[in-house]
């Protein structure tokens, strides 16, 4: 199980490949469910040229560790990887990567979605978008 906040851009597929090489037991997990969320260059009909992802370092890290533990035990997962950008992000870059490994698909799908909904609605992150004519805080996330 690994949870990390990243200041720098990352390649989600390279991260998954490296994580599996380091941690996967071949033949053990029948299922992996993965979600990547990337920065779009438009939001609510407006061109967005950049974003700053603010967080509350001590609380965000504590919350994510608890969240990962909860998912691991609730769905008896084999493994979990959660990466989330903080700081300056550009369009096209990956913001979040959530991956879970389990014996069967239902647990993998459900745990992946559970983690993402928590990230969207309960984890202390805030997005400030840079527009062509200024900045704005994203006020709320859409329901899942």
């Amino acid at each position, binding site marked *: 199980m690994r949870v990390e906040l990243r200041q720098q851009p990352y390649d989600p597929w390279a991260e998954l490949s490296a994580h599996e090489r380091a941690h996967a037991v071949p033949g053990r997990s029948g299922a992996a469910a993965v979600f990547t*969320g990337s920065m779009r260059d438009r939001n609510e009909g407006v061109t967005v040229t950049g974003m700053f*992802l*603010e*967080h*509350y370092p*001590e*609380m965000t890290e*504590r*919350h994510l560790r608890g969240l990962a533990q909860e998912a691991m035990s609730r769905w008896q997962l084999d493994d979990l990887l959660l990466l*989330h950008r903080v700081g300056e992000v550009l369009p096209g870059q990956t*913001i*979040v990567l959530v991956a879970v490994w389990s014996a069967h698909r239902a647990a993998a799908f459900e745990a992946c979605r559970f983690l*993402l909904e928590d*990230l*969207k*609605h*309960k*984890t*202390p*992150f*805030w*997005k*400030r978008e840079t527009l062509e004519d200024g900045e704005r*805080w*994203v*006020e*709320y*996330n859409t329901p899942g």
Partner: protein
Amino acid sequence: MSIKVRFFASIRDLTGRAGDEIEARPGLVARDVWRLSTDGLEPPPTLLVSVNLEFADLDAPVGEGDEVAFMPPVTGG
């Protein structure tokens, strides 16, 4: 000992400051901390509150050494 106050994101813009430090007194709740650190600004209806890194509500008791934070709805993921 005192209470550490932190403001995040649009709430920091609203209050005009990143944090504060107030004197602990018996019987304080998070709502009092907000009032004391914001010159009586009305708390926004969507305001989130944490006490010692856990979400709480405005009626949560706070005391010496606690860290109280005020923030808008989260928008990560």
